């Protein structure tokens, strides 16, 4: 990722983009070396929002640490919590009741939808179109309302607990999700009208930010970034967890390798999420929403790893237990960090506008990168 020091020559313009910049979506600091408008090198500087989450988790019990992970990739809070809960369950060898599994998958997919909605709006805003942002929030707000009703919060829900979920579904849940799907299907064509089909947008996206499948693998990119280059990386398909192996959905693959391919992957993933929700919403099995667990959880001595597909890619949770009530060491493999590392590769030789577009398609959430 880092070029050798001293590659800048006289006449290059070095710009510190961020940590306060409208396009970096938070406190990312990019040192951009420019030759006129052409980008010679981009060097991301991290650490402005480092909160030492991994270290914090070591002093929290297995029930407590899950809530902290909502603050990593706050747009996929559910999925982060889910991955952690799964890892703890693996350690406890706990069977999650079928109802809880279905609820978890439903929540994951709703989160993915909400996250992609926000990405869509923010991406269009990066390219200079303001209106899609508000249109995206119209639909996202409905999901947030559904979340609020069932989980009690809109962004950092802390709904997943080891053994299942914290509450049962709200009685209105099914009806409201169906209403949302109706609304979503009514509005989905507007996305294409406003942004996807727009000639300016297509010209901004097509053929820029190219990354080959080999480079995707060597940079460790996952999620839509990898799938935009045709690299199959969907954890839900490759290493199915919960009930994903029983569901009918496609892994979205595009072989454009450019910004537009990554854009289309996310757009089509939203439709796949809708498909999953439609399959499940009428088939939620009865039963317990939470397995019986002891009041104090103790993981046996050993190492446990679980992973889940967040809206940004593969999130890995690695717990080393010494047998106590708190983990000895926790490591998160966050998707944003690996995806960001490909940024320089994506934009080198492009224009400043390409940098913004490529950064938009990486869908960076800075707290996820810094942790």
């Amino acid at each position, binding site marked *: 990722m880092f070029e050798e020091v001293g590659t800048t020559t006289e006449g290059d313009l070095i710009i510190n983009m961020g940590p306060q910049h409208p396009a970096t979506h938070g406190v990312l600091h990019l040192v951009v070396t420019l030759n006129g*408008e052409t980008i010679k090198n981009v060097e991301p500087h991290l650490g402005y929002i480092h909160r030492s989450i991994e270290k914090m988790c070591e002093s929290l019990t297995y029930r407590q640490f899950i809530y902290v992970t909502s603050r990593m990739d706050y747009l996929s809070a559910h999925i982060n919590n889910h991955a952690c809960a799964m890892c703890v369950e693996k350690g406890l060898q706990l069977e999650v009741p079928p109802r809880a599994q279905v609820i978890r998958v439903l929540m994951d997919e709703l989160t993915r939808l909400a996250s992609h909605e926000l990405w869509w709006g923010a991406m269009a805003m*990066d390219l200079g179109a303001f209106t899609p942002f508000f249109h995206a929030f119209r639909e996202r707000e409905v999901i947030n309302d559904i979340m609020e009703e069932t989980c009690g919060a809109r962004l950092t829900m802390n709904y997943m607990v080891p053994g299942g979920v914290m509450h049962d579904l709200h009685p209105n849940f099914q009806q409201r999700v169906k209403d949302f799907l109706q609304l979503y299907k009514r509005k989905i064509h507007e996305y294409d009208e406003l942004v996807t089909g727009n000639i300016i947008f297509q010209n901004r996206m097509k053929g820029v930010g190219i990354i080959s499948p080999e480079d995707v693998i060597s940079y460790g990119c996952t999620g839509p970034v990898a799938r935009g280059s045709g690299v199959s990386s969907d954890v839900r398909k490759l290493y199915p967890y919960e009930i994903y192996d029983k569901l009918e959905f496609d892994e979205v693959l595009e072989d454009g390798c450019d910004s537009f391919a990554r854009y289309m992957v996310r757009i089509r993933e939203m439709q796949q999420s809708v498909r999953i929700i439609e399959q499940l919403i009428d088939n939620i099995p009865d039963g317990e929403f939470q397995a019986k667990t002891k009041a104090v959880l103790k993981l046996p001595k050993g190492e446990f790893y679980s992973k889940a597909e967040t809206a940004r890619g593969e999130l890995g949770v690695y717990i080393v237990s010494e047998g106590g009530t708190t983990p000895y060491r926790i490591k998160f493999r966050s998707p944003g960090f690996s995806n960001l590392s490909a940024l320089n590769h994506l934009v080198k030789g492009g224009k400043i506008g*390409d940098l913004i577009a490529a950064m938009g398609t990486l869908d960076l959430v800075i707290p996820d990168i810094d942790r």
Partner: protein
Amino acid sequence: MWSLSNIAANIDQWLNANMSPTWALIVEMVIAGVAVIGLFAALGLVLVIMERKVSAWIQIRLGPNRVGPKGMLQSLADTLKLLVKEGMTPGGADKLLFNVAPFVAMIVAMLLLAPIAFAKDFQLWDLNIGVLYISAVSSISVISILMAGWASNNKYSLLGAMRSGAQIVSYELSAGLAVLAIVVLTGSLRISDIIQAQENGWWLFKGHIPVIIAFIIFIIAVTAETNRAPFDLAEAESELTAGFHTEYSGMKFALFFLAEYVNVFIVCAIGATLFLGGWMPFHIGNWHAFNGVMDWIPSSVWFFGKTFFLIFVIMWFRWTFPRLRIDQLLNLEWKYLLPISMFNLLLVTLIAIMGWHF
């Protein structure tokens, strides 16, 4: 009776009856200056609130609705806020040029108001090269942006200024060629002649498809020339934070802001004058009854109606489209707009020579 031209004539008569001609002229100049400044301020206020309402409704929001009736005084409150804000000058800036730049932008915008015909027989200065004057003076506005960008001692500003320079210089060409199409049809550069030539129908309808193409090119080019989205690369907040006015604050920023809106008004007024007949009511050939009815609507209403319609179209662009990239922007001009408008000008010339227009 109460038309703008009558009022102007009455004032002129009264002044000439009570004063020596020199003093009358000076007083008239002062009145005109005050009127221009007043119009400048009023336009700024009206256009800002209009922009905010248009953007809000397009974005399924309500928009400003707290200050004054239906939020109509919002921009006045904003202006007051900007007036009392501290105007900062950054440390490494070239202080003189930094402070002069917004005034250059404003003065250029004011100069451009001179030859515009706001109503029948109501025009500050009907000079015989009106259209050329406007395209000439508007080319100075790029200087204010270059000055601001360079003097700020900020890399974002400098990049914004460079972009804006390349953009304005190139789009002036196709805007000029689109204007030339109408000049060729009319055979005069004088604004009043151009309006008079549209008495039996606006050029947009009289001139067949070539004039419609010229109109579309004109609208695109002036959108680019006034640095409005989707061509707002000089500001490009997601790329260059705020481009050439990154370092400006308070009233100096407000002057840039005002000048941008007045420039939008002026180019739309020119567009309305050239293609939609300026203050000329909607006339169809020799349907005298219909034309008579149309004449009942005051000419100033016609002018402002057309101008504000065009302004609305430009705002509509802004809130719909993403921004272009700098090389695409120049591609659009040099590979599409310029060749098309050159070819189009040939066609228009042919139409003018053969007298094929209605």
